[in-house]
């Protein structure tokens, strides 16, 4: 019994660690989408955050600088995206894809001298006494800074979207930019902020990979997690706390297929690896079926360029 719980605890810790990059990137993208901007460049922003964080820690030695650098690089990529889609009104889908391709190239080039080096990981922060609670203490109260941060961000944006005035303005802009504009809200400015916040979160999410998961740099090391983050936002039907559930399910399936193998479940590993993607499609289908009845959660201006006639 005790042994089983210890195994469970270790597995849950692994699942949480795997989920955090997804969680952060999806949270950022949620805010971006709430403002009416669809940014398909999440993967690119995560990569930039990862390479920026790695370089910063290699240079400065302290893993906390990596968080700042990752946030900065992610936001920088998001602001490049913003210039084009907000100021030049380019197509959001194409620009977002362009951003990912651009960032893959840029990080590959900039990261070339970083390959083969290693950095110190983010330390775990134990919360006094609470971390000593058997089983759950280790899981809930002995995590690193980014893990706590990501939960704080979720709580913050839940409050922000629901109760704060700027949050309500943000939703208004995403739901109908023309009327938000006619009431006098600065649509472009708000979208700029929302997109950059999305980039910032994605950057930190990407940074988590070298800072906590595998402390080295490799080309394209985010391995498609940015795309899963995009799916998660829909999966959560734009409700922040559901992202936590979604991210844990994704992380859980990823880990479960590895556990299944180590325990010798007779399922081909490729079929197990397909599970997260099929699960997303399945979830999307169920959610979309419900959404078509109750369409208020989807930002209506999502993906549409705003022309303000200035």
């Amino acid at each position, binding site marked *: 019994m005790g042994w089983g719980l210890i195994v469970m605890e270790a597995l849950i810790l692994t699942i949480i660690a795997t989920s955090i990059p997804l969680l952060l990137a999806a949270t950022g993208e949620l805010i971006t989408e709430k403002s009416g901007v669809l940014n398909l460049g999440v993967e690119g922003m995560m990569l930039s955050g990862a390479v920026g964080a790695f370089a910063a820690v290699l240079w400065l030695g302290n893993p906390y600088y990596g968080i700042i650098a990752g946030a900065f690089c992610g936001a920088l990529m998001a602001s490049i995206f913003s210039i084009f889609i907000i100021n*030049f009104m380019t197509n959001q889908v194409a620009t977002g894809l*362009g951003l990912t391709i*651009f960032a893959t*190239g840029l990080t590959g080039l900039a990261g070339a001298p970083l390959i083969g080096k290693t950095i110190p990981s983010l330390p775990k922060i134990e919360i006094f006494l609470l971390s000593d609670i058997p089983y759950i203490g280790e899981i809930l109260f002995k995590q690193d800074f980014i893990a706590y941060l990501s939960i704080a961000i979720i709580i913050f944006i839940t409050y922000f979207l629901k109760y704060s005035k700027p949050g309500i303005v943000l939703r208004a802009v995403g739901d109908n930019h023309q009327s938000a504009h006619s009431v006098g809200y600065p649509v472009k400015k708000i979208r700029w902020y929302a997109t950059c916040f999305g980039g910032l979160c994605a950057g930190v999410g990407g940074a988590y990979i070298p800072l906590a998961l595998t402390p080295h740099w490799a080309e394209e090391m985010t391995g498609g997690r940015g795309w899963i983050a995009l799916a998660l936002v829909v999966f959560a039907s734009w409700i922040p706390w559901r992202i936590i559930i979604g991210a844990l399910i994704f992380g859980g399936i990823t880990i479960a297929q590895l556990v299944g193998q180590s325990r010798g479940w007779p399922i081909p590993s490729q079929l197990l690896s397909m599970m997260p*993607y099929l699960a997303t499609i399945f979830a999307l289908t169920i959610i979309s079926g419900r959404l*078509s009845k109750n369409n208020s959660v989807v930002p209506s201006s999502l993906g549409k360029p705003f022309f303000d006639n200035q």
Partner: protein
Amino acid sequence: MITFTPRDKVSKNWTIIAPILSIFLTIFFGLLIFTFLGYNPLETLYQIFLSPFSRIDRISDIFVKACPLIIVGIGLMLCFRANVWNIGAEGQFIMGTLLAGSFALLFPNVETKFFIFIMIIIGFIGGALWAFIPAILKTKLNVNEILVSLMLVYVAMLFIDFMVRGPLRDPMSFGFPLSKPYSQGALINKIPFPGIGYLGQLHYGILFIILLIPISWLFVNKTLSGFKINVLGAAPKAAQFAGFKQNTITITVLLISGGLAGVAGVIEVSANIGQLQPEVSFGYGFTAIIVAFLGRLSPIGILFAGIMIATVKLGADNAQISMGIPKVVTGLFEGILLFFLLTGETIQKYKIKWVGV
């Protein structure tokens, strides 16, 4: 501060100037980045943009590389024109290849070249079936096609991997994930030139593009269906009033683009690889999205865009061979070029003015 005012008519001048300007701006930014990273900028530019044209066999290889990009790009053009965001062409490419390849492996002794036409049809069906999933989910349940088509890419990648390592594996491959080689009838030959021999990898599959470009041009510009697709994309409300069946159009464009991606896969594998392996696509499906946009969603444009991207890819190889530059630079160029071209599109539609604050 910059202001935009809509033009009454799309600017003809800018239609020509914008792409050229974009290329120059891209080269300029490329120069900056290379100088910053400590590579000789002029040598780099020569290797990336000009060296692929320096020998006739290199030029032929540009067409070989561009071939799948153009075929997939043409299919995506229809989708994007109709505002249907199929970004899963990579998966459709793989499934078309896999279905046609499995069929080819059933007939190990076929000699007749007629066989390849059957394979192309089967490849089309395979790709179209894979695109049918997002199509049906989109039209019946309003599921976002961007995410579904993308997720299906990963499923397709894993599925071909499973097939090639399992049921389709050549028993003589010592455990390596390769199918048996295709029969002679399932291969596309290289084109022999009298007196010269072969030029690089140049193969008969190129003929498909020569057919596809004019047909697709006629389709989008001269047929009612093409017109409907354009209207649906540009003004969905108008399309609704005109009584166009949006769902039918959505399904049609997804099926055609999926099918073309499958055909591209069949041609690519039959001409260049000759057997199934875990990786058959190398990102053609994603790059073709860029190609479709660079080509401004027109068949002629996509032809040139495909050649342009293929040039940069080949050039990046050359730059790596002669200068040791990591070949990810292609992504850098594709990204910057796309940004500027999309901006150019805006400039065609709007007048831009600097106004003092």
